[in-house]
């Protein structure tokens, strides 16, 4: 960015802070965001201004030479240009930003985003979206919503807000630019980045075995279903007679596979490093098919396994203050 550009950005930022109504700084809004006349702005482009000057010269020439055909031609061009302003407005009017979908990624990776744009009843030509200094263009046929795919870089764990985007068009002649600011109230969850390497979690002590039936105990004990239990352990026939699911407890996982991960067990590190280490352990436990529990200073996730448990733990880590 040039120094002039940088200075101008600073001025803009200051102006938007001071005069939000003038610069139309929009606070975040809930989806869907439909564009309507009160939030679409139009200005002529540089080309539009240049063309206007040219038309003025042409009018002057035609009047001076009292050449009515030339005047008629100039009027026709001018009227077509003015009409293109209405077309530009109509291109945006009624367009709606309907959905934003994001995949979960860990901090530092690019998050793939899918932005859904509904065209309303008219086809839309040449819509352009400015986001993060990038420019995307698309055309939408009438009635069928389109999606824009893009990737945003992430830097830190936690919720990442969507930036302010600008949807604009210079359709059809490039003489006018109609635009509207979009600031969707949509947050993307970014998981913490796991540390690259470190010690394994403390081996579970013998007390892990206490109170637990040994593997292969006969007859199998029945207990209530807990989230995270594998399906094949559910005693379907027995459950049918009760109002809740029963689980056969005969195939107990090996006690050494049960990891008890705890915030308190990590000493001498700052918060972020602790989170990174816990994230690594949770990852390893999930990938290794272990059961694990996670104890954070304010929350406790009891022993379980599976995707749902994994996401719950990662979310908690991501949002940990």
């Amino acid at each position, binding site marked *: 960015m040039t120094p002039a550009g940088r200075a101008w950005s600073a001025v803009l930022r200051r102006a938007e802070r001071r005069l939000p109504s003038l610069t139309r700084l929009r606070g975040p809004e809930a989806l869907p965001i439909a564009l309507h006349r009160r939030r679409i702005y139009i200005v002529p*482009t540089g080309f539009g201004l240049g063309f206007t000057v040219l038309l003025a010269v042409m009018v002057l020439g035609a009047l001076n030479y009292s050449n009515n055909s030339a005047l008629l031609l100039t009027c026709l*061009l001018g009227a077509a240009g003015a009409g293109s302003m209405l077309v530009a*407005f109509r291109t945006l*009017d009624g367009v709606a930003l309907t959905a934003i979908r994001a995949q979960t990624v860990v901090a530092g990776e690019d998050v793939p985003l899918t932005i859904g744009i509904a065209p309303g009843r008219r086809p839309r030509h040449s*819509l352009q979206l400015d986001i993060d200094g990038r420019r995307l263009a698309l*055309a939408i046929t009438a009635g069928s919503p389109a999606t824009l795919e893009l990737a945003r870089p992430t830097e830190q764990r936690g919720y990442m807000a969507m930036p302010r985007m600008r949807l604009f068009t210079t359709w059809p*002649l490039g003489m006018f630019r109609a635009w509207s600011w979009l600031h969707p109230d949509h947050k993307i969850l970014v998981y913490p980045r796991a540390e690259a390497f470190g010690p394994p979690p403390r081996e579970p002590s013998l007390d892990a075995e206490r109170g637990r039936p040994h593997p292969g105990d006969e007859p199998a004990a029945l207990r209530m279903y807990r989230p995270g239990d594998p399906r094949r352990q559910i005693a379907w026939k027995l459950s049918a007679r009760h109002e809740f699911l029963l689980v056969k407890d005969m195939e107990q996982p090996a006690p050494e596979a049960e990891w008890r991960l705890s915030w308190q067990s990590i000493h001498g590190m700052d918060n972020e490093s602790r989170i990174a280490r816990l994230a690594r352990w949770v990852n390893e436990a999930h990938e290794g098919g272990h059961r694990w529990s996670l104890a954070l200073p304010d929350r406790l996730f009891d022993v379980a396994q599976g995707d749902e448990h994994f996401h719950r733990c990662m979310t908690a880590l991501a949002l940990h203050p």
Partner: protein
Amino acid sequence: MNFLYALTHKVREAPISAGTFNLVCITMAWVVAVHASHLPIWLTLLLGVALLASHWRRRHRPGKTPMWLKLPLTLGLLVGIIVWYGNLFGREPGSAFAVGLLVLKTFECETARDVRVAVAFACFALMAALLSDQGLVVTVAVALAIVPALMSLRSLEPGQVQGTIAQAALPSLGLLAAAIPLALLAFLFVPRLSEPLWGAPAADAAKPGLSSSMSPGDLTELLTDDSPAMRVSFDGAAPRPDQRYFRAFVMWNFDGRRWDHGYGRRGAVAGLLPQGPVATYEITLEATHRRTLPALDVPMAAPEGARLSADRELSSNDRIDEVRRYRLSSALGYGLQADLDDNTRRLGLQLPPNFDPRARALAQQWRQTFGQNDEGIARAALGLFHDGGFRYTLAPAPLGRDSIDDFLFNTREGFCEHYASAFTFLMRAAGIPARVVTGYQGGFYNRLGQYLLVRQSNAHAWSEVWLAGRGWVRFDPTAAVRPERIAADGTAAADGSGPWYQPAWLQAARNRWDIVNRLWAQGVTGFDALRQRSLLQPFGVREAPPSMLVTILAGGMCLLAAIGLAWALYRRPEGEVAQRALARLKARLARRGLASRASEAPGHYFSRAARFWPAQRKELESLATLYIHLTYARSEPAPELARRFVRLAREFRPPRVVK
């Protein structure tokens, strides 16, 4: 803010697509085509070749055009134009240069910016084409050239659905059609200048027309020029073909070769005694860039803004740089200047000494034969032309020093100006005052439009001879040689038949088509400051000042803007009847404090409303039941039910909540 965005973010411009480049090439070709009529033929051909080369280059050798190619091309264009025209300034060389540069611009059309510059410049060049010809056909061709120009601009926009050329052309045509009302409004009410702001059209732009002098061969170019000179509409019936003489210049001075009008004789206007019918008519004269106003023989009084010379030629007070209309009355039968003063008589007998001895001798011989019978002498001269083996041709042999002798006794071929010149010479040599008159004769009477079309090719020269007791009498020696030249209804073909590319049926068709040109000339090209001011006469405004025109223009623009905005802002209501009624109801209830939440089902909303206004629980519940039944019970609900819901929803009046 947007261009500032570009400043701060530097979005790189992508190269233009092949489709865009094709459209730009079509636009340029169109520009060259509308300019072709006044560009030199070699330039038109070269520009066509350059355009093809540019197209070939982009397809087979993409990338920037090297400077060693661009520079010589530009210089070559410059040199060619300077060599051809003599200079670079002025309308003709200027527009040729502009068109040339425009074609060369296609060699460097790489980015969207280049294309926009080229298209804007092309629009300007299109206007320049109208400066040299503003006829209907050219104007329509130029207006249609806007379509490829707009299509080029459209194709620059990123992210659009690719379609066929026709699919891309239709919206541009539509935009152009939608622009017509605004364009017409602006055309009618933009105040015209009564005086040009800077230099009026240069004299070199003057079309060939009648000139104030005449030497053998001068008129040849004119007689083959088919462009309209003027259109005459008569109040009553048109005069007979042999009465359709429109006088422009009366020429007295002869130097042995050239007849000259001088600056028109001042002094008392020659007395006119009408005998017989008087024709009242209106002439619409094309721009001549001269002052002379042709008038049917013989005009009785000058129209406003013009005056009569001593010889009853009409000349305007200012130069005729645009289409001019004037009303006149002329006496078809007349006695003109019954008494000849000595000065005029001397002028009418003046001949250059030491020229044309044989013609003088012939005249003297006639004088001896006929005595004082001046008219007899004139008849003898006509008889000579009729029976003396004379031939009418537009390509006569060149004449020597004694041009009259040479013509009368050697070549014996020529056209009107040869005959008029020789006849007048003979009369003067015989001692009869005579003069040459030039103007137009004949014309095509368009029955559909009830007007007489006079073309440049109707230019003519004849003689007037002063006979005692009758005044100046018109004698047309050409008629003696070629009567059909005078009697023909339309363009008299030059040598029996016209050139091969102008067959008779084409001529006739063109004569009939002229009515459209006339309407165009009256309605559009002739719409000047004067007629604009009387535009509002039907509404009781005798003369509209410019301020009033501007007011009307502004008002009309506001009206059209309102219509355009209504179109732009109109949204077809979404959803079914019941859904729309519900949306209206929700909007009303929201104003009373119960806003609908996003993703709230209608049933839930109604139950919330019932809690909000317990007094109207019953109505709200019935509304909810009805709506849910309408929307979910059947795929096509009964229309009565829908109407009932709409009515109930409209009639529902929530009470004001006092908090």
